[in-house]
């Protein structure tokens, strides 16, 4: 079973790494938006009356990490092939395979995000590391923090794939990929701290955000990186991420099986 997942994963990575032009365009866009966010935050911080709970340097580093690992954290990241399978009825073939469709799709989505991030993150990270201050991406204080960051970023990636699986499953019902994505992406993006970092949100909103899984995928890893969260907080968070991950995968599998039981293969 694992072999099949690995095989899908490998094939998808190979395919994803072919798209160099798209990656270049993506990098340019991500720089553009990165600078825009940075400047907006600069303006906010310059005119702030009270001291914000996060330093400007931390917010800027947060922003660059967000731009570099966009493919790891964005809910709107779509695999049109999977949507096509559902809406056109080609899922018929997937269903004739002796494997769990959830696993195959999970592997495929994970590989898509990984290949996309692999092509994009290094140039962005390298350049932002040598930008003049205050625009620079500041490295974490010590190596352990960095290791923790990598760990929580990867578990966060597994979580985001589990969440996006729910989007794909919802398409079985709505038959409209863009509708499903819109719904998840708009709320999910805000709740992940991708518009503004969670510490900068008003208190009551932070309570809502903390009760939901989204912030574990982006806000949490980035704040581990910037040192906004301590190492012990990072470890506790890692456990919480793992619990969410298990819950999300379990939910996804149950819903997927339900959807497949009543699937109507579209188009004759």
């Amino acid at each position, binding site marked *: 079973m694992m072999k099949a997942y690995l095989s899908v994963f490998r094939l998808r990575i190979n395919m994803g790494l072919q798209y160099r032009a798209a990656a270049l365009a993506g990098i340019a866009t991500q720089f553009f938006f990165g600078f825009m966010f940075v400047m907006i935050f600069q303006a906010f911080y310059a005119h702030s009356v009270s001291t914000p709970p996060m330093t400007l340097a931390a917010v800027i580093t947060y922003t660059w990490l967000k731009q570099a690992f966009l493919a790891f954290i964005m809910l709107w990241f779509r695999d049109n092939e999977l949507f096509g399978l559902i809406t056109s009825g080609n899922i018929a073939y997937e269903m004739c395979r002796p*494997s769990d469709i959830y696993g195959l799709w999970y592997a495929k989505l994970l590989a898509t995000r990984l290949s996309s991030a692999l092509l994009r993150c290094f140039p962005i990270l390298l350049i932002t590391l040598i930008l003049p201050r205050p625009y620079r991406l500041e490295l974490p204080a010590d190596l352990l923090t960095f290791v923790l960051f990598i760990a929580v970023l990867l578990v966060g990636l597994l979580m985001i794939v589990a969440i996006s699986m729910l989007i794909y499953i919802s398409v079985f019902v709505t038959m409209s990929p863009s509708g499903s994505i819109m719904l998840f992406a708009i709320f999910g993006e805000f709740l992940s701290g991708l518009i503004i970092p969670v510490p900068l949100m008003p208190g009551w909103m932070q309570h809502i955000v903390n009760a939901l899984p989204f912030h574990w995928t982006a806000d949490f890893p980035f704040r581990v990186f910037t040192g906004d969260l301590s190492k012990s907080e990072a470890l506790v968070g890692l456990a919480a991420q793992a619990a969410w991950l298990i819950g999300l995968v379990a939910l996804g599998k149950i819903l997927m099986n339900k959807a497949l039981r009543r699937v109507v293969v579209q188009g004759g």
Partner: protein
Amino acid sequence: MITVEGISKTFLVAKREPGLKHAVKSLFHREYTAVEALQDISFLIAPGEIVGYIGPNGAGKSTTIKVMSGILVPDRGSCTIKGFTPWLDRVNYVKHIGVVFGQRSQLWWDVPVIDSFELLRDIYNVPQAEYKKTLTLLVETLDLGSIMNTPVRQLSLGQRMRCEIAASLLHSPSILFLDEPTIGLDAVSKIAVRHFIKEINKEKGVTVILTTHDMNDIEALADRILLIGKGTLLYDGSVSGLRSRFGTRRTITADYHENTKPLEIPGASLLSWTPERAIISVDTEQVMISEAITSLSSQVELLDVTIDTQPIEDIIVQMYKEYEI
């Protein structure tokens, strides 16, 4: 080996009148029409058979294939194939079957064919040695050697279909479901595909169930046909049985020395007539061919006579008419 008993399936189809008013209305209230795709379908298929599953568009052919391959869950009825109920034990069952949906693709669009094949090898967990053997055989018989490293999007339809068929057989299934495998293919590809199906049936004893609209496929391949219309099974028997039941008409084309006197043959009807040639349709249930020719030769001086059986295509049309489907 394949037992289908009393399978029924109803689909709910959302219906909507044209126009903006109804589009808005359907936001709040949807109306559905129940379409009975299958009603009480039963049949038995023995190992090693090639069965042609025919019927007009929308008759329920694909639905039956989907039920038999574990994709759709029927509302009622039971189906046992190799000891499995397809939709209950899907994952274990599908190892034994191969499926080709002529209108869909199972190959990855952007990568070379061989990559898709290797993925399937891993999904079905086929041992490398066995995979190599099967692949060599498939590449040879389906003539895939030159296209294995071509991305699927650059293949012609005929090439792709041959690859699709190969892909469905990599795990050496004992049952093969073919849903319109020759759709859109040219004559050469069609013949290649038919030849191949015949061969794996003979050599490996693969049971084949195929749906098609091309009656030549049926004539070339199937020992037995199942005719379905409006969701019910109408005919189950051999092709020759179908002929003797429906195809009792023969066409006689006669060339003769110029003769201006009109022909008259009892029990037969004249399809066309010129002073040198006549085409006559004879119903062999009413009049024997020999009688018709005797009568013909007594009236004109015959030069040449050809007798054609009714094309199977016409028989099917006649059947569709008779069953009002």
